[in-house]
């Protein structure tokens, strides 16, 4: 199963890039966008972090197993 890494870019005075070394396995690569959108929505709904006062200013940068960027998703696009 292909594994995708959901790195998070967030506004920070320095180094606003939280690298994902673990990744998520997806049975079907076609589900990737929906998976990332769901993850972003879930975070916006329930994850209260001091470091991130506004999730809408964050984005996911998704890479595949060889490190190629396969999707960039601003959280603002995850909101319908």
């Amino acid at each position, binding site marked *: 199963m292909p594994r995708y890494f959901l790195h*998070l870019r967030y506004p920070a005075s320095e*180094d606003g890039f939280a690298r994902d070394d673990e990744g998520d396995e997806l049975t079907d690569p076609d589900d990737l966008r929906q998976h990332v959108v769901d993850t972003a929505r879930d*975070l916006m709904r329930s*994850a209260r972090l001091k470091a991130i006062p506004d999730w809408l200013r964050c984005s996911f940068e998704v890479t595949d197993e060889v490190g190629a960027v396969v999707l960039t998703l601003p959280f603002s696009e995850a909101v319908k």
Partner: protein
Amino acid sequence: MQLQQVPIGNRLLASLSADDLARLQPHLEPVSLALRQVLIEPNMPIEHAYFPEQGMSSVTNNSSGGKIEVGVIGQEGMIGLPIVLGIDQTPYEHFMQIPGHGWRIAAHDLEQAMAQSRSLHRHLLRYVQASHVQASETAFANANSDIEARLARWLLMCHDRVDGDDIPLTHEFIAMMLGVRRPGVTVALHVLEGMRVIRAKRGLITVLDREKLEELADEAYGLSETEYSRLMKTEA
């Protein structure tokens, strides 16, 4: 058996009176506690109580959306509290998240020992209260604290239960503990790492500055640990 010659590293057992410990000792069986070993299945008869010497077990609610951790038990405690209350099962799963070793005792042997010794039963009931306080503090932290503080609390609770400063946990597991999606944990760890409080490698978190971690956890950490020491009359 030469159990008497083995030093007891479990703080709950060690806090028993010499008589009560001697009462249990013939029934204590040394066991290794492997990663992901299930100690108690939800809603199944509890056959043994476990007293870890090393390692950490998670108590989880296995909801349809996945497991969420509602408690941790290590060398300060005992897995199998319902037995102390005269109850033979629990809806929560108990399994090892950090491997180690410890002692186990058959449920009926523990029941018998408690029936013979009121002081043993009373002492274990005090631990039930300490455990109840921990669960209540988890509820408090979940309602009151942001992810950074909750993460700091959980890391401190793990740090209390491992030897040294290395905590072998994945972000995925911590996400499960805290009931948030993994990226929420990754970013919080990234923030803590930026503050030089921890070092995070794949599957391994090293505590660099415990004092700062306690500061970050704020009100989310400390009350249940202090209460444990008070109830069990052990030094933290």
